[in-house]
């Protein structure tokens, strides 16, 4: 589904943020990427849907190259949902309009169709009563669930999560993770940048530890937690698991 082949990314100031990484995420799989901040996790995630341009290597989504000049990036992005650390709901629109904007403008659905689907999704993420409300009136956890619903409204083939619970108060993390666990179990292909090791243990097929732009450890979930080899991974795990 998503193939990452020897991808490297430099920022304009010459810093190398992603350093020759490769991975394959098969359909229906969930992969969790963890690592210290500034290790290039989020940048790599943005490379997958072309929000960030990488200089070397190749990323294929469903066989289509992200960096090829002949690729219609807009069409490609419509197939990949993305959830952000700070939710990024549109503050000037109601929850319902937030969810229906892209389906109406990109998928050319009628308002009626889009709203029916949106209500279905709000039900799924557990806040059907908030459709007419503006994002600013919602808690962080509710906003993030709306953001997930907004992505799902495009009926994506895969979903990218960029630290979806890092900006949340502890008591709200669970409500968002529950939605994500459901999503993973329903067979969605997911790439999740997160430090929620509980979530990783529960649903991830593979866990990657990233540091200084490189994949330091990349293992099936069970063996990642049982027998991480690299001392840096072990140190990182011991710090966040206590």
């Amino acid at each position, binding site marked *: 589904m998503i193939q990452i082949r020897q991808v490297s990314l430099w920022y304009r100031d010459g810093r190398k943020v992603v350093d020759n990484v490769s991975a394959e995420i098969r359909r229906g799989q969930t992969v969790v990427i963890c690592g210290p901040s500034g290790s290039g996790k989020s940048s790599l995630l*943005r490379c997958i*849907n072309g*929000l960030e341009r990488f200089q070397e290597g190749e990323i294929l989504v469903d066989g289509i190259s992200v960096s090829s000049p002949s690729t219609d990036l*807009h*069409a490609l*992005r*419509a*197939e*990949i*949902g*993305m959830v*952000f650390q*700070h939710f*990024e*709901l*549109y*503050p*000037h629109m109601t929850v319902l309009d937030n969810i229906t*904007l*892209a389906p109406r*403008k*990109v998928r050319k659905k009628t308002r009626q169709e889009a709203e029916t689907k949106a209500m279905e999704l709000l039900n799924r993420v557990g806040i059907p009563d908030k459709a007419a409300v*503006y994002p*600013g*009136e919602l808690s962080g956890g509710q906003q993030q669930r709306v*953001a997930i619903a*907004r*992505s799902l409204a*495009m009926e994506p083939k895969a979903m990218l999560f960029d630290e979806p619970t890092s900006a949340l108060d502890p008591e709200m993390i669970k409500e968002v993770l529950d939605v994500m666990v459901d999503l993973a179990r329903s067979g969605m292909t997911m790439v999740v940048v997160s430090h929620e090791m509980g979530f990783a243990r529960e649903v991830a097929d593979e866990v990657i530890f990233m540091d200084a732009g490189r994949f330091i450890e990349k293992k099936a979930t069970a063996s990642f937690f049982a027998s991480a080899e690299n001392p840096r991974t072990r140190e990182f795990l011991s710090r966040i698991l206590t």
Partner: protein
Amino acid sequence: MDWNVIARNLGFMAGGLVLTFQLAALAIGGGLLLGILLGLCRVSSVSWIYYPSTAYVHFFRSQPLILVIFWFYFLVPILVGRPLGAFPSTVVAFICFEAAYFAEIVRGGLQSVSRGQTMAAYACGLRYSQVQLHVVIPQALRNMVPALTTQAVVIFQDTSLAYVIGLREFLRRVNLVDTREVRSVELYCFAGLVYLVLCSMGSILARRLEQRRGAAPA
């Protein structure tokens, strides 16, 4: 003190307000339109769009308005080959001048919308024009309202400068009455009061607009 001088000449002076309002409305409307265009150019990453618009803004912001009014009045007829008349040339001068200030407000407004918002919009598959139209510009406009209304009030006051080329707007008419009646204290107090009342009304209107816009919380 002879405050009757105001009552005696009220009709004549009030007539000048018509011209003041016309000039202000055209300057604000035209300046804003041209300003939005220039503002969009100012955030462009295309160099042949960015540099000329930047030069324009820099140029007009480093000239006194009164000089710009003179220029258009004396220079443009030479270029065009025929006199334009005081009113049209002043309108054009105001639009060109104020557009430079509006452009900077618009630029600030566009840049106030966070990169995360545009990323989220692009991530859904929206195109540049859709991202601007549905996500960036509505938020930018809301952030710009205070600065835009302040600028509009300033323009309203600046219209008095049109007297330098003999346009009989409000202040010029007060001035004419004074040369006839020699009642400077009364007349200029009155003029000050009129500007105070009108600009206060403008500010109140602006605050209303801001609150209404603020109803949708950020």
